[in-house]
């Protein structure tokens, strides 16, 4: 049985649209025989760990997710054809130890600093997101899922990049909030909000300041370049070919997504092309070496189970449920805790007591109390209705006493 690697699907001419997935694919492609692994397009909701890349190893029947955990798993459970070149098999010599240390340092640096930078370019910037990233996600997901999954990914990426303080690139957020905020920020210069500009309609209107016509990426250009060079200055002098395979693949994953996608605001690509040509060359060379046969040459496999109507429907329903304001969060927490307990039980580990019984009984009590309340409420007369009604009895023959009875014929049994 072959290893199964679940990844985000291809985009931008690369095998995956996510940096860690791209790195995982490159890692497997370099270290493992193509007959021994399968690549499966998926999304986080399609795998039990809820996180891509995810690796299913049938020989140990375990799920591993995250690039770091996958490389660790593969080095502990090597396949027959597994060969990690230049990897420190003899980590006792000082030079090998130093090389391994360098590799893990650069891996950590990429995760900590390159990921937020990439998030700024592909996810936070509204123009790039709507023109490049969002369509890429839509292309790799089956139909109802593009409505739930990309916004969740974008929210997570925005959180990851929040500490860089560049949320101004996200003009969607400005537009949905009131336009007055932007004006306040600009001080006495009244900057018209972007939505009122009609960008692309030709002539700018009268009296519009130059600043108002600039895209947010242009306004923040200097700061963006500063952020980019903070990260790339560290990465540029590194001899990537001398690094460990794992670190090299991860560097490729991030740098390729920085340098290659065609986006409307290509500030990151321009910085790399202008000042860090070595990194651009590294990406090209890497693609030439590892993905020489193109994307289609990789061992892609269709995920039948996950792509069935029921499977996709369940994933979509979960995605919608998770978006419900308060309830969704509680539900997510409960669901993740349940999954984790199942997984620990599957490995024979001790698990904490599950609160499911308590939860169900609590829900039952609430339901009973609510239905009792509704029943009681429905039994109440409508507000404003009179409690008692007096009606004058209708004048009928039976009300006239004996004479009435005589006339109505009841006495005679007629």
């Amino acid at each position, binding site marked *: 049985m072959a290893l199964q690697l679940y990844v985000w699907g291809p985009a931008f001419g690369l095998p995956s649209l996510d940096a860690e997935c791209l790195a995982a694919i490159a890692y497997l492609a370099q270290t493992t025989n193509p007959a021994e692994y399968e690549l499966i397009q998926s999304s986080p909701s399609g795998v039990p760990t809820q996180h891509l890349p995810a690796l299913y190893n049938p020989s140990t029947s375990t799920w591993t997710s995250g690039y770091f955990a996958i490389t660790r798993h593969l080095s502990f459970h090597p396949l027959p054809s597994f060969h990690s070149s230049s990897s420190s098999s003899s980590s006792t010599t000082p030079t090998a130890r130093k090389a391994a240390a360098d590799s893990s340092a650069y891996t950590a640096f990429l995760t900590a600093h390159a990921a937020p930078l990439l998030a700024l370019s592909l996810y936070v910037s509204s123009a790039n997101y709507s023109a490049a990233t969002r369509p890429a996600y839509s292309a790799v997901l089956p139909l109802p899922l593009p409505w739930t999954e990309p916004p969740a990914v974008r*929210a997570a*990426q925005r959180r990851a*990049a929040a500490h860089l303080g560049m949320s101004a690139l996200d003009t969607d957020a400005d537009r949905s909030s009131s336009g007055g905020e932007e004006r306040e920020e600009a001080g006495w210069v009244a900057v018209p909000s972007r939505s009122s500009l009609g960008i692309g309609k030709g002539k700018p209107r009268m009296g519009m300041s130059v600043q108002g016509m600039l895209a947010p990426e242009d306004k923040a250009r200097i700061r963006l370049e500063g952020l980019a060079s903070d990260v790339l200055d560290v990465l540029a002098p590194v001899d990537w070919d001398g690094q460990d395979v794992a670190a090299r693949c991860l560097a490729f994953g991030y740098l390729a997504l920085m340098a290659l996608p065609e986006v409307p605001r290509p500030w990151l690509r321009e910085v790399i092309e202008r000042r860090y040509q070595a990194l651009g060359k590294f990406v090209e060379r890497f693609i030439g070496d590892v993905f020489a046969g193109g994307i289609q040459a990789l061992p892609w496999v269709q995920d039948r189970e996950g792509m069935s109507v029921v499977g996709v429907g369940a994933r979509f329903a979960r995605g919608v449920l998770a978006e419900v304001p308060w309830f969704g969060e509680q539900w997510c927490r409960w669901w993740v805790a349940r999954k984790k307990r199942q997984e620990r039980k599957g490995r024979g580990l001790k698990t904490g007591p599950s609160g499911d019984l308590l939860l169900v009984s609590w829900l039952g009590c609430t339901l009973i109390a609510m239905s009792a309340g509704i029943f009681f409420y429905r039994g109440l007369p409508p507000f404003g209705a009179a409690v008692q009604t007096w009606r004058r009895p209708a004048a009928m023959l039976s009300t006239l006493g004996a004479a009435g009875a005589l006339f109505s014929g009841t006495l005679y049994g007629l």
Partner: protein
Amino acid sequence: MSSTRPSAAGWRAMQVPRPLQRLFDRFPLLMYDANELPARSQHLTSGELPTLYIFSTDEDARLGLPSFNPGCLKWQTLLRLSNLRFRTLPSTNHASPTGSLPFLLPARPSSPTSSSPSAAAGPIPADKLLRYAQQHGGVIPPEIPDHETNRAQAYLALVTLHLRNAWLHALYLDPAHSELLQKLYIAPASSSGGVQAALAWQLRRAAAEQIVTSSSSSNGKLVSSGGADAVDEESVYAAAGEALEALAALLAGGTRGEEGEDRWFFGVERPTWFDAAVFSYTHLMMEFMGGDDEEEEAPPPQQGAKTKIKAKTTLGTMVQDAGTGELARHRRRMLETAWPGWDGRTRA
């Protein structure tokens, strides 16, 4: 006081019940002047020495012992290394003008004339501390040589990503250390049980979110809002172990030091900011999470470490076992350099 007149008139215009009216006539409404600041604020905000506000206990702060917060400990160590004389006071994030500790108040001799603490020089946030120390006669710790700065940045990511995540997980999410968390962060904040429970819940949630967000940014919705259970603790600790190994290897191989022991990161002759950053985590991990110094017959730590988690490898033992114990020795050298004369375990 005159500003209260209209509202008082408004009161008059309303029909006040007779008995109440009589009562208020007997006790006329009086406005007192603004209170003096409490006497202890004088002590807390003025002194002959600059004051560094950190997370600490009263006793530790009085003795100037290391803080139990990694961020505070890093700056405290750097200031001590720069030979600036200062005192420390325990504080919380709420007291800080930037919203985070540490910060430093410059020396303000308390004179009876300028009683208001806000009249003196403003507080100094963490990133300007070294410049302040330089201006006031301190010796700045040496810089890392230019050709190594990029590597130092990369290695720093090991500390700020992997070690930080492991520390957050161990302290906030691991039930084995909940007593420690209670003692360090929650009990000093409030004595009310309800407030403490809410605070603990908030802290745990924030820590889980930090770990999930920083270790990988491409999460699905379920993971990013899944709370503490969404954290993959095995990979957090594995990453921390790898980070410690890498730092130990850097320390061992980075220098051509002859005497073997007296080495700092990147072969600088005195400890730098990088040493302080590594020390801030390794010290706390060894101090609070098992793994006391090998040759000292360590008294059992008072915190929850002695309970039942001895079988599990704690962060402290991970620090100790990294490489050939380089990080543990580095920590001891740092303590000897920055806290000379402290035996390392005088905890009240």
